[in-house]
């Protein structure tokens, strides 16, 4: 009967899957898993992460692989798409560990996804190294043991514009308008750190508006900012929103002296989509091929040659995260997860992203620099020892 047929089908399929799962994977390789957003709203990040992870692993394999228990063994990187859905990240992390026998994991991008994967890894006692997760958002979840993150700290990011304005002695009317999304870092940066820093530095916050990540219309808050006459506008929003906001500011005839757009103004397509309007927009950055770190310039060039797209900071943090993990496995010399985890804790080396050393809360901070879009290129304008261009101040009027 139909129901017997279907119940048997169900039992059979689970049996088949169990069988497939137990089919021995090649014992002569070290498997590393990564669940990253290759589709969905964050697909852009996923692209960079995929390149960064794969390049690090391929380079290592070309150099002979890892020495595990005395034998030279290649590394196999298994990448799954988590479709920008935390439930899928969690599920992928589980299957990467249980089906593909991943020895360790590389993280996804943005707090929601990284957390989902890290929680699974933590429960299964599998080391996970991630690079795309602001530190406070990571630390606020729990005390981690097996998850490690190397990225910037939101406090550093948030105070950077103020430090820059003080350092370069920029004259403004000291009125600040804050427009931030209500995601984890938006709420922290826009809701807490920016207002506090502004007050501490003697600025007046004339407006502090928060909005959800999927809105596209900002005309009301822009009009309000304009009528409040703020010279300094601080924005924290994702790229589609930053683009819409920049255009709507121009459409409202609003040109503040300083316009900072964290997160949103970071990728190159922001500049492409806003054209001349991008000139003068400031954004916090943590990497540029011009930085004096080992292999930085080469990495940028390689990416551009191989993918024919413009480089992004994310190739560096993902490449470094992968290398940190691979180095730790090499240092441990075994696939024992506890030993690998202990080796990660002892990391103390300079990578393409800069020096990496994890502190007691499993984080390693990357210092922030301030970058500015000038004629379609991201120029580092602060601090002075990293700058490779001059600051454009004030924000040019949109013609």
């Amino acid at each position, binding site marked *: 009967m139909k129901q017997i047929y279907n119940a048997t089908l169900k039992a059979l399929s689970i049996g088949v899957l169990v069988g497939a799962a137990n089919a021995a994977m090649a014992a002569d390789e070290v498997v590393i898993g990564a669940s990253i957003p290759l*589709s*969905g*709203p*964050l*697909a*852009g990040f996923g*692209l960079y992460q995929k390149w960064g992870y794969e390049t690090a692993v391929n380079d290592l394999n070309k150099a002979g692989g890892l020495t595990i228990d005395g034998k030279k063994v290649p590394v196999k990187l298994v990448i799954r798409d988590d479709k920008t859905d935390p439930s899928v990240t969690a599920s992928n992390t589980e299957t990467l560990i249980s089906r593909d026998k991943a020895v360790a994991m590389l993280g996804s991008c943005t707090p929601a996804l990284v957390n989902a994967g890290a929680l699974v890894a933590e429960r299964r006692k599998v080391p996970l190294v991630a690079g795309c997760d602001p530190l406070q958002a990571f630390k606020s979840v729990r005390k981690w043991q097996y998850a490690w993150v190397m990225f910037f700290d939101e406090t550093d990011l948030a105070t950077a514009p103020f430090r820059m304005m003080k350092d370069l002695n920029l004259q403004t009317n000291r009125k600040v308008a804050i427009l931030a999304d*209500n995601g984890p870092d938006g709420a922290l940066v826009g809701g807490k750190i920016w207002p506090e820093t502004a007050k501490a530095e003697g600025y007046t916050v004339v407006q502090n*508006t*928060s*909005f*959800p990540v*999927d*809105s*596209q*219309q*900002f*005309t*009301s*808050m822009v*009009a*309000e900012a304009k*009528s409040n006459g703020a010279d300094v506008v601080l924005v924290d929003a994702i*790229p*589609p929103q930053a*683009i*819409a906001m*920049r*255009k*709507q500011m*121009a*459409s*409202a*005839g609003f040109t503040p002296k300083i316009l900072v757009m964290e997160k949103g103004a970071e*990728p190159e*397509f*922001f500049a*492409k*989509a*806003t*054209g001349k*309007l991008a000139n003068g927009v400031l954004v916090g950055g943590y990497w540029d091929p011009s930085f004096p770190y080992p292999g930085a310039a080469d990495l940028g060039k390689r990416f551009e040659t191989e993918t024919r797209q413009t480089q992004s900071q994310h190739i560096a943090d993902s490449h470094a995260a992968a290398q940190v993990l691979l180095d730790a496995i090499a240092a441990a010399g075994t696939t024992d997860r506890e030993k690998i985890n202990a080796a990660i804790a002892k990391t103390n080396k300079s990578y393409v992203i800069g020096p990496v050393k994890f502190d007691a809360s499993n984080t390693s901070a990357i210092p922030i620099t301030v970058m500015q879009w000038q004629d379609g290129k991201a120029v580092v304008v602060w601090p002075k020892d990293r700058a490779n261009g001059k600051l454009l101040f004030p924000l040019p009027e*949109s013609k």
Partner: protein
Amino acid sequence: MPNFDVVVSSMASGFLLGGILALIALGLSISLGVMRLVNLAHGELLVCGAYLSYFLLSHAGIDPLVGLLLVGAIMAVIALPFQRLLIAPLAGKGMEAPMMTMFGVSIILQNLLLLAFSADTRAIEAPYAARPLSIGPITVSEIYVIGFVVSVLLVGCVHLLVTRTAFGRELRASSADATAAAVMGVDVKRVHALTFALGSACAAMGGVLIGTAFSFTPGTGATYLLISFAIVVLGGIGNIFGTLMAGIAMGLLQSLGAVVLGDGYRDLVGLVLFLLALALRPQGIAMSGGR
């Protein structure tokens, strides 16, 4: 409460934006009215229009407004075989089958767009895309005004098409009673195909305006799908003039919501209005009962 200038400008912007939303919703309305087709791929058609215009601009230098009708025509031509192949065979099998088919189409389209164009946010660049227009205390975006004028013109044209031409007569007959229309000699299949093409063209043209005024990614369609439904229901399914009124009303009310509650609540206000309209008067707010 922000000051007078801000409020007035916001309301004006909302009014103008509403016109553009009405154009987008129009396509959905006529599909629904004539073919009872719940086109869940409507948002993707809109985004396709935006991408088309983007590439016409970058490869042939055609300004988005100049190429607007061209984009509409191309979209209509692409939509025709879709309809013949996927929707026409399901005629008469109820509402769900075509709806789910369009749903499948929307998944495929979204992923095709993602594969082809990557997830990067794009915007169609034009000199008037981000310029302010000030009349007294009111400052609105120039593209909103342009978009509004274009949308009203197009809606007007569709209205004329439906009420004054032979095709329009056949369209109204088919939507009122398909069997009776067939008996009277109307090629209902052809009418359905052309209606779908027209609806897709409207969506695509609306997409061009949206792409110029704002930005778009392969996933942008979903947001506009729901708003379009809201406007269609508010204005009365198949009621073209009603759709225009409803679009403008939606734009105004959303702006009001934004001014009072904050921009983040715009979409929520729109949805709540929609739900209210559904609960109180599902057949639409517009007074005229005719199509």
